């Protein structure tokens, strides 16, 4: 058994209490240990990414209990990709938070950050549906703390709504899991896949109810319309670096959907058929449209980025709803791209807001410090997020359009028209923020350069460029991942389920 598989969960789980108990009053120590932990997590994830690419899926049996009875962690290509992506984004966000001093504006930023990473890594690794719920709760509880980090009236008001919405989601999650258990008698994902595939006809209705309930929960996490209402206020009011980290939180919803509905409920399941894809596609199209309109109509910069995040989730779910090898590879490429791009844009929005002192897009303000540099960063990231050449957003959308060739009447026009709308929204915001400010003769208020913060944003942009330049090898890797997902046999075999008598 490869014990490194559990390291991404154990490491932050040990580090976080250590930070709370041992160094609660020493910000420098917290920073050192927090950064070292996240860096170690990135290195471990990189190692696991390599392991997963040369080996078939590997299972870690917790307490060495055999599969359907104990909890298992499963490392496969998809889990390894998500781990590495999370660790990279987290490291950059942490650098940014340290560089701008965000982590000192309230207590326990670094401890909560590590707990958040523990929840995220656990959710990506677990091979047990109930354990998925537990890790969802871990990452949500940490996110409640991070969201209201720094305090303030608007932030807490948004925090109340965010917590209430997600508690409701957790209740639904439990209903779905209980129904699933009552039908199949198991919660191990591999065992579920075997049991659901050979379900007697009479149980089809119940399993559909369970599947749709779980889909609703993941749609809440993934901010799919009409369950997206928590996102704009939360992301717009959360501290900038936290919002950037939350870029990967919506992807947890997408990941869980991809994992569960390609393994347990693939479209060729007799009991459910293509039900889930058929439900997802229209919702995803509306999500994309709502997100694009939001980008066009947003009155503050953070809300603009939040709606851009919703639009990118719409695009992602459009590709996801296909559940074919080709569309899954496109989904994963776009997932990596949109996590990095959304994270970068939230950081840039925070840079602007900190210098401008005002996030409104309704009126122009005097020029800000380092305006040229920040404007260039905004320009590049907006190009990436809107899906314009030459950055990876363009390639991602191209792959998605290619995978949805047989849906020319609905998917293609929606993606193309909304891309235009998003471009207009971003250009409007950019000219209001950066160009119109030159009308004012005032000199920008001087401000220290914050090299760490800019390094973090540049690193995220560099990752986007690398994703574009290395698109060939990356898509080859993602196609192998998609093939592994579509054929669940290796995943099930790795669990070594006992033979039925």
């Amino acid at each position, binding site marked *: 058994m490869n014990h490194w598989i559990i390291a991404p969960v154990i490491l932050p789980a040990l580090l976080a209490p250590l930070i709370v108990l041992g160094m609660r009053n020493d910000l420098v120590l917290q920073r050192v240990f927090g950064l070292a932990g996240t860096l170690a997590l990135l290195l471990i994830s990189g190692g696991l990414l390599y392991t997963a690419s040369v080996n078939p899926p590997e299972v870690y049996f917790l307490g060495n209990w055999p599969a359907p009875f104990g909890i298992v962690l499963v490392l496969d290509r998809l889990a390894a990709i998500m781990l590495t992506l999370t660790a990279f984004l987290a490291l950059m966000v942490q650098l940014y938070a340290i560089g701008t001093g965000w982590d000192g504006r309230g207590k326990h930023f670094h401890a909560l950050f590590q707990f958040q990473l523990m929840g995220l890594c656990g959710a990506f690794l677990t091979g047990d549906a109930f354990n998925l719920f537990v890790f969802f709760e871990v990452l949500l509880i940490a996110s409640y703390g991070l969201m*209201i980090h720094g*305090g303030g009236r*608007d932030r*807490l008001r948004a925090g109340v709504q965010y917590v209430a919405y997600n508690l409701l989601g*957790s209740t639904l999650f*439990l209903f779905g899991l*209980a129904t699933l*258990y009552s039908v199949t008698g198991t919660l191990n994902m591999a065992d579920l896949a075997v049991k659901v595939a050979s379900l007697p006809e009479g149980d089809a209705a119940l399993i559909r109810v369970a599947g749709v309930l779980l889909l609703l929960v993941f749609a809440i996490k993934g901010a799919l319309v009409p369950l997206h209402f928590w996102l704009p206020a939360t992301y717009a009011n959360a501290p900038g670096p936290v919002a950037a980290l939350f870029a990967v939180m919506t992807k947890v919803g997408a990941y869980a959907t991809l994992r569960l509905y390609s393994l347990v409920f693939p479209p060729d399941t007799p009991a459910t058929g293509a039900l889930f894809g058929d439900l997802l596609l229209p919702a995803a199209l509306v999500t994309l449209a709502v997100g694009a309109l939001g980008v066009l109509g947003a009155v503050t910069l953070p809300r603009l980025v939040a709606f851009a995040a919703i639009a990118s989730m719409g695009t992602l779910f459009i590709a996801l709803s296909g559940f074919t090898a080709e569309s899954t590879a496109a989904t994963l490429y776009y997932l990596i791209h949109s996590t990095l791009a959304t994270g970068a844009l939230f950081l840039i929005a925070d840079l602007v807001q900190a210098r401008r002192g005002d996030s409104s897009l309704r009126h122009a303000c005097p020029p800000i410090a380092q305006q040229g540099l920040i404007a260039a960063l905004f320009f590049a990231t907006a190009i990436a997020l809107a899906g314009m050449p030459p950055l990876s957003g363009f390639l991602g959308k191209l792959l998605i359009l290619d995978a949805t060739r047989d849906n020319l009447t609905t998917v293609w026009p929606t993606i193309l028209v909304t891309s235009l709308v998003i471009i207009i929204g971003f250009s409007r915001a950019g000219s209001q923020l950066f160009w119109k400010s030159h009308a004012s003769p005032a000199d920008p208020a001087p401000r220290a350069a914050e090299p760490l913060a800019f390094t973090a944003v540049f690193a995220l942009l560099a990752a986007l460029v690398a994703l574009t330049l290395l698109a060939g090898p990356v898509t080859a890797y993602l196609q192998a991942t998609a093939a592994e997902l579509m054929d669940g046999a290796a995943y099930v075999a790795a669990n070594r389920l006992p033979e039925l008598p």
Partner: protein
Amino acid sequence: MELTLAIAIGILFGSGVWLILRPRTFQVIVGLCLMSYGVNLFIFSMGRLRMGAAPILTKGAEIDPSRYSDPVPQALVLTAIVISFATTALFLVVLLASRGFTGTDHVDGKEREQ
């Protein structure tokens, strides 16, 4: 017995839904509590309702599974209770902090204008 439990879960969840749609944060938190009670009962009943059957096997003797109740939902419900207790406590803290900052217990952070 099934009918009684089903009605109880329905009433708990229905009251919970009504309460979380109310404007005061205290009503919302009570609603969320009621909903988590409802879902806990629901998980519990998913292992089939049995009277007088233990979930723990006795050592040594030959095991007849039909004489025992399913232990898994009981373990699940324990986990769910702990988690919902913790999240509710955390929500309470956020509510109180929000009450302190905004000066009102309305979920929108401000009273509706008359």
